[in-house]
C-alpha cells in the first residue's frame, strides 16, 4: 500500500524531483552542520573544501536527471523522425523497383534509384522545421548536461584550490581585451608611420 506522500510524489515527475532535491539538501546540510566542527581542524586541506561544496554536487546530480529526461525525449523523437523517413523512402524504392535485380546493370540502376530517393527524402527531413526545432532542443539539452558536468568539475577543482571554468574564462576575456587594445594601437601606429613617410 502506498503512503499519502508517495502517492502525491507519483503525480508529477517534477514534484518528485523537487522532493528528492529537498531531501538530499536537507540531509547534506544537517550532516555538514553536525560534522563541520571536527572538520575545521583540517580546514586547509582538500577534504574540508570538498565537504563544504559537496552539496553542490548533489544538486547538480539531481538536476542532471531532469536534463536527461528531456534529452531522452528529444533523442527518441530524433530517431523516430529518421526511422519514419527511412520507412517512407524504402516504400518509394520498392514501388519504383519492385523486382529483385538479377544482373549488374539492374543492380546499378536500382542503387541509383535507392540513393536518389533516400537523399531526397532525408534532405527534405533535415530541411524541415520539425527536424530543425527538435534537433535544436536536443543539442540544447545536451549542453545542459555538459553544464552540470562542468559545475561538478568546478567543485572538485575548487577543493584543490584550482581556478574554476568561470575564473579561467575571466582571465581569457581580460587577455583578449588587452591584446585587442594593443593590436589596435600597433596597427594605428603603423598606419601613421606610413602616412608620415608618404
Amino acid at each position, binding site marked *: 500500500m502506498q503512503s499519502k506522500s508517495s502517492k502525491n510524489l507519483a503525480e508529477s515527475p517534477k514534484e518528485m524531483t523537487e522532493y528528492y532535491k529537498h531531501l538530499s539538501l536537507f540531509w547534506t546540510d544537517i550532516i555538514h552542520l553536525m560534522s563541520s566542527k571536527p572538520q575545521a581542524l583540517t580546514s586547509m586541506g582538500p577534504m574540508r573544501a570538498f565537504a563544504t561544496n559537496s552539496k553542490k554536487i548533489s544538486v547538480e546530480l539531481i538536476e542532471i536527471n531532469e536534463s536527461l529526461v528531456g534529452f531522452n525525449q528529444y533523442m527518441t523523437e530524433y530517431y523516430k523522425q529518421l526511422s519514419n523517413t527511412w520507412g517512407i523512402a524504402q516504400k518509394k524504392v520498392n514501388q519504383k523497383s519492385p523486382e529483385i535485380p538479377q*544482373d*549488374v546493370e539492374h*543492380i546499378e540502376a536500382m542503387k541509383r534509384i535507392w540513393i536518389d530517393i533516400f537523399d531526397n527524402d*532525408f534532405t527534405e527531413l*533535415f530541411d*524541415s*522545421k520539425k527536424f530543425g526545432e527538435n*534537433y535544436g532542443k536536443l543539442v540544447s539539452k545536451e549542453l545542459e548536461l555538459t553544464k552540470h558536468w562542468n559545475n561538478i568539475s568546478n567543485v572538485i577543482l575548487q577543493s584543490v584550490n584550482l581556478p574554476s571554468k568561470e575564473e579561467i574564462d575571466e582571465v581569457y576575456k581580460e587577455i583578449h581585451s588587452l591584446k585587442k587594445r594593443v593590436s589596435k594601437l600597433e*596597427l594605428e601606429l603603423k598606419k601613421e608611420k606610413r602616412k608620415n613617410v608618404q
Partner: protein
Amino acid sequence: MYNESNIDPKIIEEVLKFSKNIIEAPKFASAPDEISLEVTPHNVVQEIDKTRLLHYEPITKIKFKTPLLISYALINRFHILDIHPEKSWVKNLLSQGFDIYMLDWGTPTSMDKYLDFDDYVNGYLDSSVEYIKNQSSTEKISLQGYCTGATITTAYATLHPESVKNYIATAPVIDGWKDTTVISNLAKHMDVDKMVETIGNMPPEFMYYCFSVLKPFEQGVEKYVKFFKNIDNKKYVDNFLRVEKWLGDTPPIPGELFKQWIKNIYQDNLLIQNKMYIGKERIDLKKIDMPMFTQVAVGDHLVSPECSMPLHYAVGSNDKTLKLYPTGHVGMIASSLSQKKVLPEMGAWLAKRS
C-alpha cells in the same frame, strides 16, 4: 520461389572483385595522415596570434602591380584553395602572373573563445592588408573571399573601401534567410548563446555532423563504394584521399565569432539589411564602391545561390559582374571546371583592373 540459376555470374564476379579491393586497399592507398598535400611554395611573412600571412612564390613573371589577398572559409584550412597541384586555385592565379597572398586563420584554442568579427575584420585582415600595402608600395590591393571568408572580406570592404581596389566574392555567405540549405535550417534553430557559454569554441565534431546531413547517402555511402571500386586507379585514389583529408581537418571556430555569425547572418539576417555592427561600426553594403566580381555555383548545397547573389545587388559599385557556374561549392574552386572556366574568367576580369 527464387531460382538461383537466374543470378548473373557477373554479379558474383563484381562482389568478389569488390571484396578483394577492400582487402587489398591498404596496398594501393596511403592513410590520409600519410599524405603530403604538396601545397604551392610560400613564405610566412607575418604572424599575429595564431594567424599567418602567406606570400606565394611566383612561378612566372609578376605581370600585375596590384597584389591579391585571399581569405578562405573559416571552417577549412588554407589548402582548400591549394588542394592539388593540378586543381590549385592559387597556382592557377600565380601562373596568370598575379602576386598572391593568403591569410591562414590558424587553429583557435580555448583561449581564443572571445575573438569576434571585429578581431577578424579590423584586426587580422586589416593588419594583413597594411602589411601588403607596405611591401608592394601600393595604396590599394585586390581582395578575394571564399564562403565564410567572403563574409569577413565583405565586411572589410565596407569598412575600409579606401584599401580595396578590386573585390571578388566567391560563394559568399550573405543573406541567411534566403539560404535554402540544411545548414541554414540547423543554424536557425540553434541556441547559440547556450552553446558558446557552455563549450566555448564551436567544436569541429559539430561541423562534421552538419556536413554529414548534406546528401547523406551519396556522400556517406556511394562515395566510399566508388573509392573501393576504383582502388587501383592511382589518380582517383590520390584525389579522393586529399579531399577526405581536407574534409576531416576542420578547425574549431571561436565562440564569440560563431555566435555573431549564427545570430547576425542566419537568425536575424542583419548583414543584407545593413543593420549588422562590427565593433561600433555599422556594415553598410552600399559602401562597397570598388569594382566587384561575384562568383556563384548553382549546385551549391553548402551556401545556396539565393544566399550569395543578393550581395551583387546590394553593393554600391557601378562596375560589377555576377557569374554563375554549373557546379557545386567545392567544384567551383577545386575542379577541372574551375581551372578551365572559373579561374580564367576571374583572371581576365582582374587583369583589366590590376
